[in-house]
């Protein structure tokens, strides 16, 4: 059984919960209170991840930290369709990696602005917002050009990749950091598409898509759950 060290309000943990749900993998959550208890900085948690960051997963003797590393692991381990992390295509694989790095820059901008507003971090909120808007403009333009080629996801191709989930979390939570998405129509259309993926789950602050079709992906809806995947 996979154990996810999780904080319900964390966007980085949310990325992992999304993929687990979309791949239909069962897991157990262990709540770590990020705010106000700062449980991720306690000795007990530092012995699990010396960086003092969430999320972390454990399965058997294996411990993996960093949301994107976890997404890679889960996709390789449980996605039999090989679409979420397309290793056989060097170009798309590079693009997935590139956009996951981009997602990390959202953690240090859009997410940080949210930490200032909602969790009282002593950071420069205005600077974080400015940087987030710069990144959102780049992202919006990228998605807009993709749409013109009928590519609906972050990385051109028929199916979404883990880069979509990596980027989704702090984009969709941006309003909590005072970053409006009003000026980014392609981003808004894309968040709506992600919300329509089969297995999509919400978190506090994220609302489900309005009425409309669910986007079922080929062959990722009938996967065996974690305990039986190797059987």
């Amino acid at each position, binding site marked *: 059984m996979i154990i996810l060290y999780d904080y319900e*309000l964390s966007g980085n943990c949310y990325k992992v919960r999304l993929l687990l749900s979309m791949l239909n993998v069962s897991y157990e959550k262990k709540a770590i209170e990020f705010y106000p208890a700062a449980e991720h900085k306690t000795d007990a948690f530092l012995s699990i991840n010396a960086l003092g960051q969430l999320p972390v997963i454990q399965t058997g003797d294996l411990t993996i930290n960093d949301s994107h590393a976890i997404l890679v692991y889960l996709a390789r381990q449980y996605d039999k369709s090989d679409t979420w992390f397309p290793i056989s295509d060097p170009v798309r694989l590079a693009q997935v990696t590139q956009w996951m790095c981009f997602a990390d820059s959202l953690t240090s901008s859009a997410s940080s602005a949210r930490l200032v*507003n909602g969790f009282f971090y002593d950071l420069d909120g205005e600077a974080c917002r400015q940087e987030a808007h710069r990144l959102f403009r780049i992202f919006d333009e990228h998605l807009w050009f993709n749409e013109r080629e009928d590519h609906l996801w972050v990385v051109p191709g028929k199916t979404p990749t883990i880069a979509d989930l990596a980027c989704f979390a702090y984009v969709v939570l941006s309003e*909590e950091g*005072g970053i409006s998405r009003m000026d980014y129509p392609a981003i808004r259309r894309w968040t709506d598409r992600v919300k329509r993926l089969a297995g999509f789950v919400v978190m*506090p*602050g994220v609302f489900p898509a309005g009425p409309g079709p669910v986007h079922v992906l080929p062959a990722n809806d009938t996967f065996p759950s974690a305990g039986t995947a190797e059987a």
Partner: protein
Amino acid sequence: MTQCSDPVALALWHPIAAIEDIPADGKQKTQLLGEVLHYRKMDDTRVSVHHGDRKLPVTLAYGYVWTCLGTPERDLFDLPEYAESDRRNVCAATVGVNVSAPRAVENFLDMGHFPFVHTGILGAEPHTEVREYQVNVDTERDEILATECLFYQPQAAAGSSGGVMSDYIYRVPHPYCAVLYKSCPTDESRLDVIALFLQSVDEENIRAHALVSVIDTQSSDLDIRMFQQNIFSQDKPILENQLPKRLPLDPRAETPIRADKSAIAYRRWLRTKGLQYGVLAAAA
């Protein structure tokens, strides 16, 4: 930052932090009514609060530090349940929300939003009806009381094991604080207490502090805290999208639907008090 000139708000006790969240040493910083405050834990029973060089009055109550920027007009309201020996008192959450304190109080009083905002927890469709309930102003204690509130809840508390009709009583004993009493899932003869203590960072920003005081021997403190933090985080985007961010006190802004009955009483009560901070005053 505009200075607060509202004598009503200046004379109130305001919460600024959970006592247990204050580090043992070091000066902490927060903001109240637009003013930067510093506070420090002296020991487990003493906290000092300063506004610049000025030492402010302090009350430690219900797990939180309370202070006053003017001269306190009265003692902090009573919450006798806090002292009951078999209760779990948990400082469950402190959440920043970009809204005025009165908007947050009003949302707290409104059961109508449960099925839509706290779906599957505090409410669920099709159980959306808010039944007739009573609202009174207790003039002696100077507080609002809403009673006989009844609502279907799939998971009423951290310790729930299934759906129930929950009884609610609401108290508004302070312009920026509200207390609810609800059926206790583990003991029919008692009521669980959830208190919302709002810190007005400025007129349109708050820190929402929650005290949970329950009869529950099963749930861990962490369970209780995470339950409450999830509920608060579901309210946050709803509150942040309300416009205007300050609560309009003009009587013409009132719409006569039943779920609003306590809101109407609350707005009236604020009008009578002459409160100005965090509201849009009624046109004269």
